[in-house]
């Protein structure tokens, strides 16, 4: 039986129709439905758009799957899935699944994953052979902060124990730092692996979010970069670790030592969402576990602000544990268009 729907990669000329589809069927006023510049930033790759489309016999878009390529030059690249939507009441009950299958069958890749999947869709991903899990949320609280506007901290705050041999240098020379990073052999093997160009585009050229970069040194030996972003609510400020660009086996130690930047800062806390971190090292060290906590609250949504803990689920085709962060995929992005966004 042949399908009455056609599945194909998007062309740049499909842009307006995809944006309308997002506004009509995903979320009215979503930034990707009305901000052409942001849409291009996120999904344009040369003369193509990184979307798989399902079209009916009249060429009307009935389903979309957005994706991003972390290193399009390579066949062994890692691909992250993003916006995935098929309209209801179609005569094909598995069209959504076919969009992912089309991408898997038609683009060379090493692994495919998605950060921020809807909990209800976990069964679909599992059926397609993905592993699923949840990013673990940690936070370290500023012991000198007397009033918390954003977070609900634990009753007793930890005093940090930091190793003096570590140094975190704020930098704006991200490109130079990345040159050093890509020479580290362990970084080349890292999964998922983001290319220098992807990192520059994603974090340095982001049209709305301003990321703060710290070079990491242990005993003057360069280990990589921490990508962070400041968030604000009322009079409170906090620093979020959005990504750590380093060898996977150094990441938990980097995060644990990074709390030294909290000293004498204006931040209430530092938080991080990630998978495959060393939970023992972090909770015996400087961090509190936020995931599943009834006593600690660290918000994830800032526009509008929601004072509650949020779970972030992920799926991956890789059987080996991977280190995913909130900065992976389309997670750390504004949802609504504004003239100037410093927070979300």
């Amino acid at each position: 039986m042949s399908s009455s729907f056609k599945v194909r990669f998007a062309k740049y000329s499909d842009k307006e129709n995809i944006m309308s589809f997002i506004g009509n069927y995903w979320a009215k006023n979503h930034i990707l439905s009305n901000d052409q510049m942001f849409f291009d930033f996120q999904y344009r790759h040369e003369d193509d758009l990184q979307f798989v489309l399902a079209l009916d016999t009249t060429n009307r878009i009935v389903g979309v799957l957005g994706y991003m390529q972390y290193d399009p030059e390579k066949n062994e690249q890692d691909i992250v899935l993003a916006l995935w939507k098929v309209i209801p009441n179609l005569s094909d009950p598995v069209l959504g699944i076919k969009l992912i299958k089309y991408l898997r069958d038609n683009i060379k890749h090493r692994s495919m994953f998605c950060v921020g999947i809807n909990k209800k869709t976990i069964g679909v991903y599992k059926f397609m052979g993905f592993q699923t899990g949840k990013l673990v949320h940690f936070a370290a609280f500023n012991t000198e902060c007397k009033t918390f506007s954003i977070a609900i901290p634990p009753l007793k705050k930890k005093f940090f124990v930091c190793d003096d041999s570590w140094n975190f240098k704020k930098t704006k020379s991200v490109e130079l730092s990345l040159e050093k990073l890509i020479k580290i052999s362990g970084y080349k093997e890292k999964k998922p692996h983001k290319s220098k160009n992807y990192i520059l585009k994603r974090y340095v050229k982001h049209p709305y979010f301003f990321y703060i970069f710290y070079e990491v040194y242990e005993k003057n030996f360069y280990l990589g970069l921490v990508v962070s972003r400041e968030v604000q609510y009322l009079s409170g400020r906090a620093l979020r670790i959005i990504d750590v660009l380093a060898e996977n086996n150094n990441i938990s130690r980097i995060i644990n030592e990074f709390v030294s930047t909290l000293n004498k800062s204006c931040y209430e806390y530092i938080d991080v969402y990630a998978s495959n971190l060393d939970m023992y090292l972090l909770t015996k060290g400087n961090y509190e576990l936020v995931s599943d906590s009834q006593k600690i609250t660290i918000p994830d949504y800032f526009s509008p602000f929601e004072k509650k803990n949020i779970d972030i689920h992920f799926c991956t085709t890789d059987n080996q544990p991977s280190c995913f962060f909130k900065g992976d995929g389309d997670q750390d992005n504004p949802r609504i268009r504004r003239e100037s966004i410093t927070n979300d």
Partner: protein
Amino acid sequence: MSVSTIIEIFQDILDVKKGTVSLKTTSSDIDQWDSLATVNIIAALEEEFGIKFKLEDIQTVKTVQDFVELVQAHKK
């Protein structure tokens, strides 16, 4: 294998009244029948009949009848 059991599974998962689902029913007839519901239906059929579907098996299913035939093929 009972066709009525399969229809009951569809009705339970799609959360529709008895008699709403027939062998001719397609996903365009019921709002809730999407990819997610399909996977839940598949999981329920696998458990009920002790069979295992592959991704390729469900590429062409459209009607409840298609699912009945799929179950029959796997039971053989």
